[in-house]
Each structure stands twice: as C-alpha cells, then as structure tokens.
C-alpha cells in the first residue's frame, strides 16, 4: 500500500517535470531555437533515468514522453524540409551529455534521417542498435530498445519499401537489425534475474513480477520479424528461427524460455510453423526442466489443428505431423523421468486432441495415445503393488487430477467416434482405471454420442462390448472387497479437490450404500433426477440395436435384458419398457416370417396333410398346456429361424412378471400392449397367449391398482384392448368383458361408475348390426346403459348428474344408430323426457347452484347439440331408413 502511494507520488512528480520541460521545449520550437529545444528535450528525457518507478508506472511515463517526442520529430522534419541537412542534427544531438536522453534523441532524429533518404537505412540502423548498448540498466534499456523498435518500424529496408536498395539495404539487413535488437533486449531481460540479491524470497518474487510485466518489450521484437514482407518460409527456416531458438535455448532462463516459445507460436504464421516443425520440436526437448513444454506443444498443436480444419489440404500428409509430435513427447518422457503420471497423461491428452482434430477418423493414432496412457498407468500400478508387498496400503488408485485427465481422454474422442470407440482396444483398458462414478459419467457421454451419431449396433460383439462399457450406468458399484475405512480413504483420495458437487454426489452414493440414505432433500432430488435421465438414456440403447436377422436381433435384446436385469429393481421402470416394446415390434417381423413359412408349408404338404391347417389351432392349444412354462415353448419350425413368436412372447412375459411386483401400473399397461401384439398375430394359435396377457393385467388390476384415477385409466386401456381384439374365443371374450364391466360397476365414485359402465357397454356390441363376425350381445348393452342412467341419477349431490345424463344419452344414440336391437326409440324418448323434467325441476328450484355458471352453460350447450343432432338425423334424406327411425324419437 505504502508502495502504491509512493509510486503515485513519484509518477506524478516525474510527469509534472516532463510536462513542464515539454512546455518549454515547444516554446523553444516556436521560437525556432534549436539549442533550447534540445536542452529541454533532453531535460524531459532525463526523467526516464529514474530508478524509483515500477515497470507499469515507468510505462505510463514512457508513453507520455513518446507523445512529446512526436513534436520533436515533427520539428526535425520541418527543419529537414526547410533544407537543413539531417546529418547535422544527427551529429548535434550526440553532444548531449547524458547517455539515455542522447540515445532517445538520436533515435528520433534517425527516424527523420532515414525517412529523408539522405542516408542508407541499413547503416543508420546498425549504428543505433550498436549505440543502444550504451544503456545497460535492464528496465531503461528495454524501454529504449522498444522506442528504437517503434520508430524504426516503418523505416526498415523491407521488400517494397523506399528504404530498400543497393545502399539502403535489403530485408536481410532488416531482420538482422531486429534479431540483434531482440537478442540485446532478451539479454537485458534475463539479466534482471541474475542481478545479485541477498536471495530474499520477497525480493526474488518482486523481480520475477517485474520481469513478467516487462516481457512484452522483448516479445514485440518477434512481432516485428513476423511483419516483414520480404521474409518467406524458407528465410524464416534458414536464417530466423534457428537464431531465435538458439537464443531461447541458450539463455537458460525458465521464464524467458516459456514466454518466448509461446510468442514464437503465436506471432508467426501457420505456414512458417509447418515448414519448421522439426526445428521447433527439437528445441522443445532442450528447454529447462521447469518449463511447461506441454503448454508450448498444445499451442502449436492448436494452431496447426485449427489451420488444418480450415484448409484441409494445407498440411502435406508426408510431413506426418502426428508422428513428429509423438516422437517429441516420447523423447521428453525419456529425458524427464521426473514427470508425474498425471503430466504423462496430460501430454497424451494433448496429442490425442491433436489427432482428433487434425486426423479425424484415424483410430490408430487415438489408440496409440490411449495405449500409452494405459501402459503408463499399468507401470505405475505395478510399482505400487511392489511397494504394497512391504507396506500393504490401499490398492492402486488415481488421484483426483489423474481421474480428471483420464475422464477427459476417454470423453474427448466420443463426440466424433461414437460407436467406433468399440474398435479402440485401449479404450476399455483405460476405462478400468477410473473410479465407478467417472466410468458412469463416461458411459453417459458415450451413450449420448452414440445417439447423436445415429449409428446402429448391428453385431453381437459390439452390443456386448458397449453394454460392458456402460455397466456403471446400469448398476451400482459392487460392494468393495475392502473394509469400509479403507474404501473411504480411497474415495477421499479419488475425490481430492474435485468440484464440490461431484464430491457431494460421491459422498451421497457412499452414504446411501452404507447407511441407507439420510441426505438432504435437495441433493436427493438432484440425484433422483440424474438417475432418471441416465436410465432413460440407457433405455434408448435398445432402439439403437438392429439386425436384419430376427434371431440376431432377439439375441441383442436378450443381452440387453441380461444386463438390465442386474440393475437395482427400481431402475426396471426405465429400462424394461423399451425392451418389451422392442420385443413386441420384433414379433411383427418374426410373425411375417412364420406366416411366409406356413404358406410355403401349406403349398408343399397341402395334399398329404390336407387336414392339418384346419386342426392347427387345436394342436397348438395342446402344445401350450404341455408344461413348458406359462406360454408353452413348443414351436413350429421355420427353416433357418431359431426364435419364433412364442419365444418372444415368453420373454415379454418373463420381463413383465419381474416388473410387475415393483411397477404394477406400468406392467399392466404393457401386458395389454403385449395382448394386442399377440392378437395381431392373426392366428388362433396366439389367442391363448393374448388371453394370458389380459388375465395378468386383470390380476394386477385387482391386486395392485387402488387409486381411482389410475383405475379409470387402466379400465379404459382394458376396454380399448378388448375392443381391438379379434381372435378371442367367444366364451373367453365374454368372460373378460363381463369382468371389466364388473370392475367398472365397483368403482368407488358414482360418476366414475356411470361413465365406465357406459363405456363398457361397447364391449357387447362391436361394430354395426349388419356387420357379421362381431360379438353382439344386445341384451347386455341395454343392461349397462340402464345401469348408467340409474347411477347418474344418484349423483344429484355432486350436481354432475346433468352432464352424465347427456353423456349416457349420447351412448344410447350411438347404439341406436348402429342398429343395436335392444336400444329402441322408446328408451331414447323416455331419456330425453327425463332429462327435460330434470331441467325444469332445476329451473323451478330457482337456479340450481350451478345455474348461470360457465359449467352450466357448457352442459346446456352439450345437451342442445345432442338434440340438434337428433333433429338433423330426422331430416336426413340420403338415408331414408335412418331418418325414419330417428323420426320415431320424441324430442
């Protein structure tokens, strides 16, 4: 703090003096007083000799001086234009007694001198860069050389400038000048560190901070080199880069090496780097131990990768840039055995990233990097186990940093490789080094990548491999063989300094395993949400599996089922439905093959076994009951097909049976789906299977479904399923329909009873009266409807009765129109009259509770529309018969 106050004071004071001298200097200029101008200018410049300022304050002062020197330059230019030979000025300013002001003035005049073309640029520049050696104080020297660089910037004998020529020099002189200025600047900068100190740590740190601040004054010289128009890749390779690298390597200064290597990468163009990659990488292996070579390599790789992506043909393949980087990394690892395993992993991660971007699709490179990591880790583990023999500590585990890098190594290639990672043998071996939670994370990313790529899993090996890789998504970590204390220590080691969130999550899984939960609600929620998302993601995997061969496809599903079954049962709700639905989808394909084969059978054997087709149903029924499980296993052979529909249905049955105890509603719904699928098989052979599925759904309904709303949804689904079924035996259909109607009649709430019984009535009159082959039991229809009306009448209290009446009226109308013989105009007229009575009653009571409300208006409109419909039908001319029947209804 005190230092800051001092700095402000020193800077203010110096600034004031600069402004003052600048004022007098300009005054002298106005009076065309050259001597006075120079005196005040050098007094002003003398302020730059201060030793009191930090680099940043000095920079401010320097900027101010630079502003003022512009007037000096203008003044000299004016004199030159008036005809004064610049050489005179050039000599005159050298008489200034003080070296720093003298050199600033000299450089200023030199700028004018070169511009005037009165002297060759080359000679003047050489002169200046030499004379600047007169200032050996590091900070002052660095700023002076920066001024030289700034002034000479547009006066170098570069190609295409007026300063180039026989006399003025060539681009070679230009880069020689810059190189020399650079190496002098670098020397000053490095020397700062070597200045004798009393080795106080604080002093050392301060010096290092100052050096960090001053570094741009060195780096600017590299920018100048890169701006030269006349320098081409060949020149750069032969004359410039070797000199720069020599400087860098030989200065043996960690800070300088790190910074300058980075500058070289950033400042020069991509083509230059491509032309000199070998030189550059060779220098990388010669840097000081503490230099972060990885950061430097990453810098080059990023540049080249970006460049290669934008200009695919720009890097000639014969360069084998990946091999060059790989060699460099290998060499580093050999020469620096002190590298930690994490650093080794990070280097490989950088290489892998480069391979991914520059050589997309090159699995060999990726596998190489992953293999190197696996080897490094295996070595480390071996060493650890050797030690363990003596001290017997924990098993080998990565620390948090290591986990992070390996996770990155495995995640990076996923987005572009997706399913192709299965072709990288080392991917799985590296995965094993990660703790469960990280493997789960990688698994999730892998799944997402697979879906994004829209690739399909089409062979058994891939299915197995992929499922194996995502095992941590499927199940919980198996209990450790370690004691709980050791396991905790291990987990702590792995968590280390990872994000709080992650660590919390880890803790939580640990806690829920050992103590059975007991965490705060919010993390519990978060965990549940995450689990749900992951499991849904996992379930989708089923739809990625595809094979033209139905047997193979079924095997895929069986493998998935085997894996999913090992998960905690609460996860079945996410993973089993896709499995069941995929199996039912597969049933359609298998059935097509069976039908085709049966057709072929029939043609071949039609004569000899004429009666078989007719008796098929019966023989199948026998098969079902022969004790091979609930559905029977005996299958009819289709040549070349192993798994028939029966086998598939059996699998579905097993899955649903294991799902049912935990998720009754879900299982119920899926049983009904399965029943429909079996019915769709269009053969009598499957009607018993279908019946079995429906029965299972009914059992679940009776035992497990207790909530009213769920009951209604379940009943609706049951009715829907039965209505769509076509192949039940009449007695079975009748039994099932009766059962559903009973369920409906037993619902807890009257309005629900009314509605569901009315809906169930449709089970007894499918289709129209004149449609053959449908189940028709008109007596049951009218029974249901009558019961619904009665129940509606009991709903006065809930004031829902009016709406229910109109609803039931509509059911009546439907059956009347279909021609159901029991539903006669007598019933309709009576119901309409009944409803009218109820309305009048309500009106008499003087506006029921619902009167005037929007609900009442809605019911009124509903009723009116229904009556309008009846009236419309009466006048319908295109169907005389129907119109006549409707006319019989009294509205």
């Amino acid at each position, binding site marked *: 703090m005190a230092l800051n106050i001092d700095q402000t004071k020193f800077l203010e004071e110096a600034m004031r003096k600069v402004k*003052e001298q600048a004022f007098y200097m300009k005054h002298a200029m106005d009076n065309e007083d050259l001597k006075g101008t120079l005196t005040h200018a050098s007094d002003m410049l003398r302020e730059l000799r201060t030793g009191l300022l930090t680099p940043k304050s000095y920079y401010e002062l320097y900027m*101010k001086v630079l502003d003022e020197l512009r007037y000096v330059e203008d003044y000299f230019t004016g004199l030159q234009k008036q005809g004064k030979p610049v050489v005179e000025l050039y000599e005159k300013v050298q008489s200034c007694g003080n070296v720093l002001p003298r050199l600033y003035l000299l450089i200023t005049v030199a700028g004018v001198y070169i511009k005037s073309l009165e002297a060759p640029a080359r000679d003047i520049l050489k002169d200046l860069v030499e004379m600047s050696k007169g200032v050996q104080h590091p900070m002052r020297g660095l700023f002076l050389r920066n001024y030289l660089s700034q002034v000479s910037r547009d006066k170098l004998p570069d190609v295409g400038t007026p300063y180039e020529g026989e006399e003025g020099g060539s681009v070679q002189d230009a880069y020689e000048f810059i190189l020399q200025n650079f190496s002098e600047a670098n020397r000053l900068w490095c020397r700062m560190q070597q200045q004798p100190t009393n080795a106080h740590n604080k002093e050392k740190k301060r010096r290092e901070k100052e050096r960090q601040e001053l570094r741009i004054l060195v*780096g600017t010289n590299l*920018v100048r080199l890169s701006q030269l128009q006349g320098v081409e890749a060949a020149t750069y390779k032969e004359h410039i880069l070797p000199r720069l690298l020599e400087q860098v390597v030989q200065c043996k200064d960690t800070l300088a090496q790190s910074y300058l290597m980075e500058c070289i990468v*950033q400042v020069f163009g*991509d083509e230059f780097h491509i032309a000199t990659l070998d030189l550059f990488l060779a220098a990388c292996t010669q840097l000081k131990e503490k230099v972060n070579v990885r950061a430097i390599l990453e810098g080059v790789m990023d540049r080249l990768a970006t460049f290669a992506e934008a200009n695919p043909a720009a890097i000639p393949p014969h360069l084998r840039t990946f091999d060059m980087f790989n060699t460099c990394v290998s060499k580093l690892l050999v020469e620096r055995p002190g590298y930690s395993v994490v650093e080794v992993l990070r280097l490989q991660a950088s290489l892998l990233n480069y391979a991914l971007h520059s050589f997309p699709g090159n699995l060999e490179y990726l596998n190489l990097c992953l293999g190197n990591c696996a080897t490094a880790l295996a070595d480390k583990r071996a060493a650890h186990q050797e030690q363990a023999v003596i001290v017997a500590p924990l098993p080998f585990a990565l620390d948090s940093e290591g986990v992070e890098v390996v996770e990155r190594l495995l995640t990076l290639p996923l987005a572009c490789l997706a399913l192709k990672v299965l072709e990288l043998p080392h991917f799985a071996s590296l995965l094993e080094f990660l703790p469960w939670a990280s493997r789960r994370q990688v698994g999730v990313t892998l799944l997402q990548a697979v879906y994004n790529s829209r690739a399909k899993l089409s062979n058994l090996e891939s299915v197995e491999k992929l499922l194996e890789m995502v095992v941590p998504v499927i199940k919980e970590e198996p209990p450790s063989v370690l004691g709980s204390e050791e396991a905790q220590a291990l987990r702590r080691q792995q968590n280390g300094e990872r994000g709080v969130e992650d660590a919390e999550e880890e803790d939580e899984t640990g806690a829920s395993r050992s103590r059975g939960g007991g965490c705060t609600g919010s993390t519990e929620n978060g965990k549940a949400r995450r689990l749900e998302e992951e499991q849904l993601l996992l379930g989708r995997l089923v739809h990625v599996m595809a094979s033209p061969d139905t047997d193979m496809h079924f095997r895929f599903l069986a493998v998935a089922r085997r894996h999913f079954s090992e998960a905690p049962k609460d996860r079945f709700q996410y993973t089993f439905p896709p499995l069941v639905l995929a199996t039912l989808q597969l049933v359609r394909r298998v059935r097509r093959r069976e039908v085709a084969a049966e057709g072929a059978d029939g043609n071949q054997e039609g004569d000899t076994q004429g009666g078989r087709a007719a008796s098929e149903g019966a023989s199948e029924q026998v098969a079902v009951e022969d004790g091979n499980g609930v559905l029977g296993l005996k299958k009819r052979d289709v040549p070349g097909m192993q798994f028939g529909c029966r086998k598939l249905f059996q699998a579905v049955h097993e899955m649903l049976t294991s799902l049912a105890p935990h998720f009754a509603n879900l299982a119920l719904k899926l049983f009904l789906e399965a029943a429909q699928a079996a019915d769709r098989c269009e053969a009598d052979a499957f009607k018993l299977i279908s019946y079995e599925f429906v029965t299972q759904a009914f059992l679940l309904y009776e035992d497990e479904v207790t909530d009213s709303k769920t009951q209604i949804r379940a009943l609706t689904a049951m009715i829907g399923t039965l209505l769509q079924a076509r192949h039940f035996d009449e007695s079975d259909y009748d039994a099932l329909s009766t059962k559903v109607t009973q369920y409906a009649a037993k619902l807890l709430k009257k309005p629900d009873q009314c509605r569901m019984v009315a809906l169930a009535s449709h089970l007894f009159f499918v289709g129209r009266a004149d449609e053959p082959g449908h189940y028709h039991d008109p007596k049951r229809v009218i029974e249901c409807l009558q019961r619904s009306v009665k129940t509606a009448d009991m709903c006065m209290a809930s004031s829902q009765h009016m709406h229910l009446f109109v609803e039931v009226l509509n059911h009546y109308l439907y059956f009347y129109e279909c021609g159901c013989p029991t539903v006669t105009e007598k019933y309709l007229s009576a119901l309409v009259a009944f409803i009218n009575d109820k309305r009048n009653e309500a009106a008499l009571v003087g506006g029921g509770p619902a009167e005037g409300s929007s609900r009442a208006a809605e019911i009124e409109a509903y009723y009116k529309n229904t009556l309008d419909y009846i009236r419309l039908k009466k006048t319908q001319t295109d169907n005389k018969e129907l119109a006549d029947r409707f006319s019989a209804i009294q509205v």
Partner: protein
Amino acid sequence: MAHRKKVLFKYIILGDSGVGKTCLMNQYVQKRFDKTYKATIGADFLTKDVMMDDKLVTLQIWDTAGQEKFQSLGQAFYRGADVCMLVYDMTNPKSFDNLEHWRTDFLHNASPPDPDNFPFIVLGNKADLEADRKVPKHKALTWIKSKGPKPLPYFETSAKDATRVEAAFLEAAQLALEQVSQEKDDYFPDTINLSQPATRRNAEPAGCC
C-alpha cells in the same frame, strides 16, 4: 508554429484476439491483407495522413493485443485517445459479447473527461464470411443503441476485401474532429519562472493529456 498546427488524432483499436484488429489497420494504412493469424504483442501504432476539410490530419492508429497475457504492462496507451474502435468478429458471438468489457475497460483506463460522450465506433469485421455469420445484425443494432443518447456508429467491415474499412476510419476521424472542437486542455505552468522551473503545482487541470 507551423509544425504544431498539424492535427493529430489518436485511435485505439480494441477487441478480442483474432477479430482482425491488425488486419483492419494494415488494410487501411498499407492496403494489405494477410490471412494468417499472427498475434500482436503489446501495442504500437502506424500513422496515416489524411485530408479533412482542407486540413491535413495525422491519424495515429494504435493496434493492441487482444490477448491479455500480451498486455502485461497495462493500458497506459489508452490515455489521450481521441476515438476508440471496438471490433468484433461477426462469426464469433463471444467476441461480440465482450464488446461491453472492452468499452468499460477503455473508459476505466483512459478516463476521458466526458465518458458519456466519448466517441466509440463499432466494427463488425469479417463481413466477407456472411455465410458463417453468428451475430445477427439486429443484435449489434440493439447494442449500439443502448450505449448512449445517440447510437454508436456501426460498420460491417471486411479487412480481407477492404469493404467499408476506409469509411469506418473516416467516420472515426469525423467524430474525433467534432470532439476536438470542444477544446482540449493544454498544460500550462503555474509560474513561468525560468530560473526556478520546479515549482510544485497543486492541481492538474482536468483532462490534461
């Protein structure tokens, strides 16, 4: 006094790394375009003379490093700027989002006398890559309108094919010219005493360079 009648404007070009600050300057001053990315370190200028209203004006154009690590000595060069050009790359939304940061950084470090009316000019560069545009024009228009009583002048430029580069720099000069006519303070010693020039002054005039 002829030499001091010359008008000089100091331009500062700011923006994220890789938006094309150096390329814009090179295109304007040297009519040259280099498609490879080369980082700038620190800050330095090129000058260009232009005629404005029959007056010779020197533009001192400061190109700056977009990467913070290449600006280790601070932003002393912001001081005394007459106009500030904020550049973003219209194919890079992040560079657009950072304009606010650059503007605040400039006002904070340059501390101009009238920050509310300091002339900024906004350049959406790489207009030649229209097909890859990621920053919709309306977003830029909304932003420039939110920055003061009058919307900031806005140009969609291409340093590569020189589109609107000249126009943008001239507009900037025009803004600077309007600003200068509002009078700039100049240093004046309290006492002109040649024998004892080192008199301590109590207060600096506001806005002195």
